[in-house]
């Protein structure tokens, strides 16, 4: 006990004492600390620069059940900032090593590593966690996890989010000396998709500039990466045809074979050092031709992988903010940040919290329109119903359900492929689930002007309620 009070002394100041800016349901006491250790399960997505920091911070903040998922292996270039890794770890999965190192240093914490892609795990896996902490560097991965977390969200009949279905996320991101930390409470604060415009689109140079009038080192690198790479592979195959038709010597074939070995005819892989080296040397040639200075190997990596040098201190600051928010969300010991913190340490220091608002009709986190249907309603009938529904008035709708195209108005080739669904019950087309989300798009007329729109609908089938009816349905 004495050891424990010593160890948690700082945390206890937050968890054991009442306060004025705490969340309404905050109940300070040792039970809260114990519950946090017993019931909170955190998933850390990414075990890179931010992920290493997050694991350490969460473990030291009293979280005991942590999982970490990352598909990458440790590279030499990670070692300067991904401080859980050592030279002898190079080549090993980041998740495994990060979990092991933190468990060695923080007693009592249990970290389960997952060395795989985030898409490899099913929804059941994600549903196990009370909170998800994101330490990622890609928009795609954020968007994916956001979609997963929001898919657990349910709304009541008054379109209020059901508290117990909210899967909170804290999201960190850094670029050099800049970073952000945000809190996403789906249904309450904007989700990633509500504010995707916050991410600046990637700079893309016109291909013809790359091909004809390069002016910068980056132009030369992108030329080698986007144009030159494909050129060599296909030109060699052309030689093959030529040589073949003129029944020429076999060494032509051999040359072609070796050329193919260099690129193996496959697409460029930014994580393959040989590929990167090739792009670098081609970019150097290109730069010499046009008298452009500044092509280096690290710039090549930066341009091709769209990397901005990572700064260890930025990661530490952003991660600390995220871990603190995780603790606040879980314990209620203080109000959570609302809802987006930006940090800029480029010149002096600037930090600011902005309260972004939700996109009311967000397809991912919004409530959608609730519709109660009989299980006998066919897709055709459903389409008529949403045409007449006063909140929708949707004409010419196309319908999709979890990636399945149920009906498409156009183009004719898809209309034909989906037409036979029209006479089937929607309940059957939705795999006989009692309630689920469906998406429709079509034209809606508001104040006599036609507008195209894409909507989320919450379908509930009447008379089907939970498990017993599910069993009945499968038994029938």
């Amino acid at each position, binding site marked *: 006990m004495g050891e424990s009070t010593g160890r948690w002394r700082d945390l206890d100041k937050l968890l054991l004492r009442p306060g004025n800016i705490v969340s309404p349901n905050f109940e300070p006491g040792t039970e809260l600390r114990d519950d946090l250790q017993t019931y909170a399960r955190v998933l850390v997505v990414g075990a890179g620069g931010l992920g290493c920091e997050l694991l350490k911070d969460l473990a030291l903040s009293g979280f005991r059940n942590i999982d970490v998922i990352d598909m990458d292996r440790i590279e030499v270039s990670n070692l300067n900032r991904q401080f859980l890794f050592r030279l002898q770890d190079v080549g090993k999965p980041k998740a495994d090593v990060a979990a092991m190192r933190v468990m060695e240093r923080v007693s009592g914490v249990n970290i389960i590593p997952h060395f795989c892609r985030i898409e490899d795990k099913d929804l059941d896996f994600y549903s196990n966690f009370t909170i998800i902490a994101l330490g990622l560097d890609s928009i795609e991965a954020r968007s994916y996890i956001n979609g997963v977390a929001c898919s657990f969200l349910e709304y009541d009949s008054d379109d209020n989010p059901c508290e117990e279905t909210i899967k909170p996320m804290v999201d960190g991101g850094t670029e050099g000396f800049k970073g952000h930390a945000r809190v996403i409470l789906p249904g309450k604060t904007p989700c990633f998709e509500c504010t995707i415009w916050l991410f600046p*689109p990637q700079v893309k140079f016109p291909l013809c500039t790359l091909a004809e009038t390069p002016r910068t080192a980056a132009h030369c690198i992108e030329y080698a990466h986007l144009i030159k790479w*494909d050129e060599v592979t296909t030109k060699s195959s052309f030689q093959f045809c030529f040589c073949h038709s003129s029944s020429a010597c076999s060494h032509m074939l051999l040359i072609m074979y070796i050329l193919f070995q260099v690129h193996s005819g496959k697409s460029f892989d930014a994580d393959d050092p040989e590929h990167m080296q090739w792009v670098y040397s081609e970019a150097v040639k290109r730069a010499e031709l046009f008298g452009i200075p500044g092509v280096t190997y690290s710039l090549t990596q930066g341009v091709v992988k769209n990397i901005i040098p990572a700064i260890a201190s930025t990661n530490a600051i952003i991660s600390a903010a995220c871990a603190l928010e995780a603790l606040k969300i879980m314990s209620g010991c203080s109000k959570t940040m609302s809802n987006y913190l930006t940090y800029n340490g480029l010149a002096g220091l600037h930090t600011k919290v902005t309260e972004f608002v939700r996109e009311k009709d967000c397809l991912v986190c919004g409530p959608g329109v609730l519709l109660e249907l009989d299980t006998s309603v066919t897709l055709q009938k459903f389409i008529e119903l949403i045409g007449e529904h006063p909140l929708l008035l949707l004409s010419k709708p196309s319908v999709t359900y979890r990636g399945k195209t149920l009906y498409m108005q156009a183009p004719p080739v898809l209309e034909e492929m989906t037409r036979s669904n029209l006479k089937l019950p929607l309940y059957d087309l939705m795999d006989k*689930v009692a309630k689920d989300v469906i998406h429709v798009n079509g034209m809606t007329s508001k104040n006599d002007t036609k507008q195209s729109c894409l909507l989320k609908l919450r379908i509930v089938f009447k008379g089907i309620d939970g498990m017993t009816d599910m069993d009945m349905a499968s038994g029938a």
Partner: protein
Amino acid sequence: MIKLFKVKEKQREIAENANGRAPVKKQSAGELRLNKDISELNLPKTTTIAFPNGKDELMNFEVTIRPDEGYYRGGMFVFTFAVSPIYPHEAPKVKCKTKVYHPNIDLEGNVCLNILREDWKPVLNINTIVYGLHHLFTEPNHEDPLNHEAATVLRENPKQFESNVRRAMTGGYVGQTYFTKCTC
């Protein structure tokens, strides 16, 4: 929040989650928006679209353009579209599958069309791109060259350019490069 999870955890021990069956496939926001784009396509009559992977896999598709005027009349050009899950935040990747003698399309199928790269905006859609591609065949331009030789010929000798295009489309050599027949 933790109290909620404590309660939930207890409940879970009593009865496994009622909503038992795990959903098979989640739909990305990009997929939803693409679906909308596709269902609202208003293609020029010279254009067709095909979905080689069936009706449930719309993120990769092919657009075939058969220009009815200009240098490329009578030709048939297939473009592959690959759409990202964060579409329309990011433009689709478009390549020309048909080897074509064209100033703005190189021999590897890279296409120089501003809206595919530097001028892409999320308000644009698949229809805009198809019209843009169509435009490349009615109005090839020598100012944004990807195929340098073709651009030079178009600028300096349009008659020669016309006959080069014919030769390429009917199958044959233009300079050192062999083109397979692509007339329909």
